[in-house]
């Protein structure tokens, strides 16, 4: 590894460790009197699944010099932990603070949504690791595009549907499942949009716009479903299968089908 990579590794290690130790401490140090240990499972699973998902993408789809090198695999996993950790720090801008919401407010819907947010951000970062490139900085550049898109699309959908409020204030489990699937699907599309061999910053941005825009379709769908859900919730609490699982599976299936239809990256 070159000196700049070693430097970036240690910076990422410090940022990632700070972010995830903070997350886990907030999740686990809280007295058992406030919430059960079992209810905090999604909070513990989030960093584990995030690292595992990123490792799988790196092992199968990263550049061959990364795939074949344990130090490089470790480097990009640590870089991902830092990136996703920073992203998790921004969740409170949406009113979502999974460790507080779950461990202190006993809100299981926020745990599922938080897990989805972590996985969505992970996929947005993982896509930037797919293909050949000159170095770690192009991974950060591509990740910045995909992660920014995830947050903007979430913000757009939330402005109309108010789904995050339904999760954190209404504690609606169906909304939690749907928001989790929405963020995973958007993260997957954005990750796919920045995947591929590096040509230039401009070409990457052009590809990202060209391939990533269908996530706006999910956004519009979520606006409609979220408004319908809010309308139904005024009368009675609708079943989580109807307002959470079914649309959530549609989001995931849509993102998977779209990614498959694109074929291999170039």
């Amino acid at each position, binding site marked *: 590894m070159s000196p700049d990579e070693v430097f970036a590794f240690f910076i990422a290690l410090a940022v990632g460790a700070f972010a995830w130790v903070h997350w886990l401490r907030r999740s686990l140090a809280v*007295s058992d009197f*406030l919430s059960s240990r079992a209810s905090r499972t999604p909070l513990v699973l989030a960093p584990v699944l995030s690292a595992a998902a990123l490792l799988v993408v790196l092992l199968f789809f990263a550049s061959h010099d990364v795939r074949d090198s344990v130090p490089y695999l470790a480097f990009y996993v640590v870089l991902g932990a830092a990136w996703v950790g920073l992203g998790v720090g921004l969740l409170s801008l949406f009113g979502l603070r999974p460790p507080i919401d779950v461990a202190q*407010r006993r809100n299981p819907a926020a745990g599922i949504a938080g897990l989805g947010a972590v996985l969505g951000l992970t996929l947005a970062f993982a896509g930037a690791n797919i293909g050949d490139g000159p170095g770690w900085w192009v991974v950060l550049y591509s990740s910045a595009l995909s992660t920014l898109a995830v947050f903007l699309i979430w913000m757009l959908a939330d402005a109309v549907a108010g789904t995050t409020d339904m999760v954190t204030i209404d504690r609606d489990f169906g909304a939690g499942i749907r928001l989790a699937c929405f963020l995973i699907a958007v993260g997957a599309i954005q990750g796919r949009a920045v995947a591929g061999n590096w040509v230039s910053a401009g070409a990457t941005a052009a590809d990202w716009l060209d391939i990533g825009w269908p996530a706006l379709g999910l956004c519009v769908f979520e606006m409609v479903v979220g408004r319908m859900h809010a309308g139904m919730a*005024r*009368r009675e609490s609708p079943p989580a299968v109807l307002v959470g699982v079914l649309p959530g599976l549609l989001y995931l299936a849509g993102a998977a089908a779209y990614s498959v239809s694109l074929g291999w990256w170039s």
Partner: protein
Amino acid sequence: MDDRQLLFELWTPPSARYAPWAKPVLFAQMATGAAPPDSQVSDLPVQPWADFLEGRTAVVLDLPGESSVSHALALVAHGLQPVPLFNGCAGPGACIDVESIMMGLRRGAAHLRHSVPADAPPAFMLDSNRTAGKPPPGSFDNRWVVFPQDFPSGRFLLAHGLARVLVVHQQACKPADDLKQVLAAWKKSGIEIFGVEEARKSPAPLPVTKPWPLRPFAALALLALGLRSNSAGGFGAKVPLPPEGGRSGGLA
């Protein structure tokens, strides 16, 4: 069952509709063996405004700590379910007195053996002193705030037949900024907000204007207010002492 758990469940039985919102922070800090005393609380406050409730009103008791507890106990007779939302921890040299609240919760538990129906309207208990003062270095800063996430949504209240909220204050009805956020969200949902001073008879509509958007920037706001989270839950941590300045050396 742990005595503290027993006390907590006396205050807010798990079957109560609003139990998920109750905060066990102070109960968790009580000494074990804190079983409810047999003696009942005899000096409950007079509530001249109680006729206003009529079964479709949620109450927010924004009163100084122990007063909030005694008013909640008095509201049990009117069929309301107390929901403690106290979220500041106890600690040595604490800037907010929570010991008296803990004592009140212990003493009041005996009064709660006659439970209210599970679907009873809620009486949310706050300490109006929750953000009072600025703690000096070395003290235990247990100031705290509430967020909309700490209360049921307006949609939830309306869906369960509660179309208005009564905020009870000690004196002038001026909710703090954190509570304004909650009231503004409720008002936006279509709930009528009323306010009353604890000794007055007639509640009046409470004008609620939305303050600076605390919720979306919750973490930043906490930093700005200088509040300190407690790792075990709730708020409360020692304010660090400033580093001592260097002294020039020399022989005494």
